[in-house]
């Protein structure tokens, strides 16, 4: 019964997300609504877990986890004109004891965008590459133990960095790099957690401490010297859907 509740709440959450993405209005409104849905989902799963009671004993074994996943940003400036959306690569390693998992994770996103620089010879097209990386520690609490479907919720905190460079003649010398701290909630489900190889699907919202610096190139005059102009800041706060495989060794 409690599993049905969890599945129902998951379905409800997914449907709500789908509805809001299809009919979503402006950017801030969408972000606010999605955070609310995420919180609703976490609370719902927690209530379901409580209602189940504690008939299953939690395992006292230590779990070592290694995993590989992919993540996709659903909201934020990734979807706007800053740069093209890209699927990120996630690698993590961690350990768990009883209901808690402590994980160190690394995420990498890379994206290219076609830009145009103003010059005496007209607009010059060039490619700008964005590399967004997150290194974070997260704590997750398993809401149910000893089940084939284990929902969990938690939080993460770490550092994020955005490296921007272009393919104009100065190549990487032209890059700018900015680092920020990041944090956010995580909620997801683990399928077959007692198997050596298990599957996880989660959603997380990443808040960055501040927006990131960006630049545009221009070339004034016939001397051919490029100039870097500061452009608007990039806000990379976003909701991510993450999925992948985790290898768990239980001692």
């Amino acid at each position: 019964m409690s599993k049905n509740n969890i599945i129902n709440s998951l379905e409800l959450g997914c449907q709500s997300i789908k509805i809001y993405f299809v009919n979503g209005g402006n950017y801030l409104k969408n972000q606010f609504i999605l955070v609310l849905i995420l919180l609703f989902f976490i609370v719902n799963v927690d209530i379901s877990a409580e209602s189940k009671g504690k008939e299953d004993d939690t395992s006292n074994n230590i779990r070592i986890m290694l995993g590989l996943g992919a993540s996709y940003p659903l909201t934020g400036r990734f979807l706007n004109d800053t740069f093209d959306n890209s699927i990120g690569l996630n690698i993590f390693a961690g350990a768990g004891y009883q209901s808690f998992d402590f994980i160190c994770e690394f995420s990498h996103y890379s994206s290219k965008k076609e830009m145009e620089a103003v010059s005496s010879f007209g607009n010059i097209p060039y490619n700008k590459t964005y590399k967004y990386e997150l290194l974070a520690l997260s704590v997750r609490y398993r809401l149910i133990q000893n089940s084939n479907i284990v929902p969990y919720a938690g939080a993460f905190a770490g550092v994020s960095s955005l490296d921007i460079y272009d393919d104009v003649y100065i190549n990487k010398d032209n890059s700018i790099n900015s680092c920020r701290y990041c944090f956010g909630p995580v909620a997801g489900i683990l399928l077959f957690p007692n198997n050596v190889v298990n599957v996880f699907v989660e959603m997380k919202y990443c808040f960055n401490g501040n927006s990131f610096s960006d630049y545009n190139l221009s070339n004034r005059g016939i001397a051919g010297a490029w100039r870097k102009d500061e452009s608007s800041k990039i806000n990379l706060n976003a909701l991510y859907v993450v999925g992948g495989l985790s290898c768990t060794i239980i001692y």
Partner: protein
Amino acid sequence: MYDNILKNLIIFSSAILLLVISVSCDDQASLFDTDRESRLISPENKEEISGDAEFRYSSYDAKYLILALFSDYPSVNSDNRLTNWEDCIGGIHTNMPYFTRGVCRLSIMQSYDVDKNEFNGNGPVILDYNRKYYWCVWGLDEQLRIIESSPVYEFTYVE
């Protein structure tokens, strides 16, 4: 017999050496350090021109071309950048009206604006009579890197 062979060999070697020397002396260095060289056809080096003279040159496939006139010999620093833009008096480039690859009349060229680093269209270039000037051409690729350049030719503008 061996004397004859040796004599012929010396004459042949001397001829080759002379040819190499004459070719290398005739070859003027490009203004910029580039792999490809644009060729200036007319006016030739140290030629006298008058009236609405025509400047002819040949270039490779550079996306953007610049033809510039200088009142003093243009110099380039170790970063392959022109250092005496203040001596530039005018010219034309690919994105200006009436630009045609390979040929340009003096009346089409526009005067140079030092502040904007542009051939700004404030009128044609006006040259003083009986004065030496220098002209050259260089080409840029799609990302405005200098990829070809000509030598610098001197000319005198006469009545």
